[in-house]
């Protein structure tokens, strides 16, 4: 099994950390992982993206042009990455702020109103975990218990009290993802 993912959105949405949690979860279940962020001027301009690969085998190229799954969180990223999904692949997006919705017929499209759900839960910071939950429902590649283990390992001790909130956000995402 090899899953090649791009997560793209605005800086500050937690795109990079969501990728990091996914990668850490892969390690927790003995898989190979790579995490390659956009860095530099591109990132400083406000958009951020990260390529994450989770695999049972040694990972070849950490940089890719075609993905099994694209998680898209703003219009710029939709414009850039809708066409990078492999035929038959998955596109998951939050319709919040999207003007031009995805049009491709040869991929499977899902939406999760993560920004709205996070606001309803009273904490917009857990937005990315709602998205992660939606992804985990579509592609159960990483197990929830391993995500929690990954969070424990990657977060400093003082933030561990926030783990239950993150778990709730993941569940919220899992229960509110819809196929378009």
């Amino acid at each position: 099994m090899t899953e090649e993912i791009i997560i793209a959105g605005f800086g500050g949405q937690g795109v990079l950390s969501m990728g990091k949690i996914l990668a850490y979860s892969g390690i927790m279940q003995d898989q190979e992982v790579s995490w390659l962020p956009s860095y530099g001027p591109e990132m400083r301009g406000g958009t951020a993206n990260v390529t994450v690969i989770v695999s049972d085998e040694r990972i070849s190229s950490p940089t890719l042009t075609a993905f099994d799954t694209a998680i898209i969180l703003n219009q710029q990223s939709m414009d850039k990455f809708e066409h990078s999904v492999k035929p038959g692949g998955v596109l998951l997006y939050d319709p919040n702020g999207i003007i031009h919705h995805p049009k491709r017929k040869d991929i499977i499209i899902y939406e999760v109103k993560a920004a709205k759900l996070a606001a309803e839960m009273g904490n917009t910071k857990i937005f990315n975990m709602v998205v992660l939950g939606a992804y985990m429902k579509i592609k159960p590649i990483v197990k929830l218990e391993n995500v929690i283990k990954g969070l424990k390992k990657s977060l400093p001790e003082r933030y561990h009290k926030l783990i239950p909130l993150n778990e709730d956000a993941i569940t919220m995402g899992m229960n509110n993802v819809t196929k378009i």
Partner: protein
Amino acid sequence: MGELKLMKGNEALAEAAIRAGVDGYFGYPITPQSEVIEYLMAEKPYERTGMVVLQAESEVASINMLYGGGGTGKKVMTSSSSPGISLMQEGLSYLAGAEIPCVVANVVRGGPGLGDIQPAQSDYFQSVKGGGHGDYRLIVLAPSSVQEMSDFVPLAFDLAFKYRTPALIISDGLIGQMMEKVELFDQMPRLTDEEVIKRHPWATNGKPVRGERRILTSLDLDPHRLESHNWHLQAKYKTIEENEVRFEMLHCEDAEYIIVAYGSSARIAQKSIQLAREKGIKVGLLRPITLWPFPKKPIDELTKRGIKGFLSVEMSAGQMIEDVKLVVEGRTKVEHFGRYGGVIHSPEQVLEALEQKIIGG
């Protein structure tokens, strides 16, 4: 099994420096390498092992701090990115001339000049053909994963001290910035002053009780003596060429074509090879791990076996291809493919180049 962590290549290099028992790191921040010094400053290795971490006033200062620290037999290291490494070339030539071991890491970015901050492999010539003045060589190791960013630190120190010569670890913005799973090796103790004196009889660590005064210098105004010194250096480089070549071969057993690539290009090429093999194209990968000494023998053997063509894939305008050609000597086709100036080629572009330049060409 060692501790497993998800780390950036730059962070793995920094952690490996602490664990390898390095005595001093002297550096100056530059993107895409700054995480090395940032990690070291945050980790405070002076509390863990007594290792010194110092932000020098410039790259020129840091390389000369290596001359001073390395001259006392201590394990010293610096890192930078392309423009900073250019500033260090004079110092590297002096270190090689005075036979002072040290490790330098270059996280290459696009050039020439100040260039940009994206990944590139255009410092190959600088690394393996000199960069500084005079007849000298550096041992050049090219990691292609975060794991190797960690593993090559102690390896580079072993080689540097074994041959009393500077060693260079050359990666790029891609390997430096990406995170992968890394198995960290256990903490190695730093040598005590007594151990340093015992192990390195050449080191200038105080007036010897008996025996001659030790002087480390690259200056000798007597041309005949300097020529002898050069003979000694060349003999040493020959020994390194005979004993320290490192490379990896993947899918070469039945290959009709070979991609030669190092570092991040080797990772990208592995994907291209997978795509090619799905189309029935028999192609393998030769990955030089030491760029100097260059793996001449496996290329020669592959040529003799009747390989139909070599594609040298590098994020440069074609630098390593010259070394491939020197081995192949016109016996088969050798072509270059690569994007540069900070642009990374895609696995599909590499495959297309293979089909057009080698198979169809």
